[in-house]
């Protein structure tokens, strides 16, 4: 398997298309963790996330001939996973695990941790309320650190649309920060901290 470390995704895809099924195993190992993390952003439940990853890899395999390499294999996989997650959310709208349980399960003995968890919970709930496209753009940008070009590929939309979706999502969340007293107090407390670490994350937008 080590011989495959230097092989690109596109080369592996070509091998699989040519009938070399074991090469697909390399692609699965390479991308399953990232796909699982992405799925968790949408379904908040490890079992459902694993189902999404499994379904996505199987769909990708079936449709491998339609992958032309115009985007990266990872972007294509993410695209399939997001569509699968959306379908799952539609199917199980009322069966999803309560998000509060997930976040309250985080060990939080110290007061600051409790506040952190509470605020985190509010934000998670607000992210869930976003329209699916805005939520997708936000997740890919904030948590997956994708460029707008990559986000546009995953979402199959123009670059500007991807950027607009992300900005709208961020504006809504900022409004939430400003409207909710609890969040406002907290963000003011940590404001100094963000200014301080801001330099570390500075990036051109």
């Amino acid at each position: 398997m080590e011989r495959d470390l230097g092989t690109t995704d596109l080369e592996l895809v070509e091998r699989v298309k040519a009938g070399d099924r074991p090469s697909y195993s390399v692609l699965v190992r390479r991308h399953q963790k990232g796909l699982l993390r992405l799925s968790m952003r949408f379904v908040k439940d490890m079992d459902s996330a694993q189902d999404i990853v499994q379904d996505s890899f199987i769909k990708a395999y079936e449709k491998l001939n339609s992958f032309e390499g115009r985007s990266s294999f990872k972007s294509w996989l993410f695209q399939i996973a997001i569509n699968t997650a959306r379908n799952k959310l539609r199917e199980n709208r009322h069966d999803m695990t309560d998000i509060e349980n997930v976040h309250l399960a985080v060990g939080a003995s110290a007061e600051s941790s409790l506040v952190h968890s509470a605020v985190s919970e509010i934000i998670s709930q607000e992210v869930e309320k976003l329209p699916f496209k805005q939520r997708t753009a936000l997740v890919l940008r904030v948590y997956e650190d994708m460029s707008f070009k990559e986000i546009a590929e995953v979402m199959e939309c123009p670059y500007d649309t991807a950027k607009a979706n992300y900005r709208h999502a961020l504006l809504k969340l900022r409004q939430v920060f400003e409207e909710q007293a609890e969040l406002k107090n907290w963000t003011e407390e940590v404001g100094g901290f963000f200014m301080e670490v801001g330099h570390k994350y500075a990036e051109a937008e």
Partner: protein
Amino acid sequence: MDTQDRPVSRTEKTRRLIRDLDDMDFDVSNDLLEGLHDRIMSQIEKTEIEPPARVAKVRSHLKSHWRSWLYSGSTMGMLAAALTFGGVQVAQWLGPHEALANLDQVSQELVIEAAISPDDFSNTILTNVSTNDFFVDVALQSHENLSISEVNEILRTQ
């Protein structure tokens, strides 16, 4: 401006805030990942890759087999079009020059003809007799025996 001196936008602050608030615990064990991988691959063993769609097949075929021919064919076509267009242009440019050359040649022949036999030249070439006159002459000679009124009748019907 140095990135360290760049002011942080509110959008960027919000982004960092959200990212910092990320509580999602994502410490997945290797066993979980191995199990997931094995489940996926066991399903893959039973799955077949769908044949390419017809449109994609044609496009792929064109891409892989005919691309070089398409390129060379289109190059040849463009070359032929350029040559044809260029040929027309050259012919249009040469046309008047060729006519002038012919005119020179004809005038030289006329001068020679006039020098050799000036009478013939004046009778045959320097004449203002039209085709109609010629036919009238022929008619007159062919019908010498006709009366004037008959000749006039023939001329009227012409």
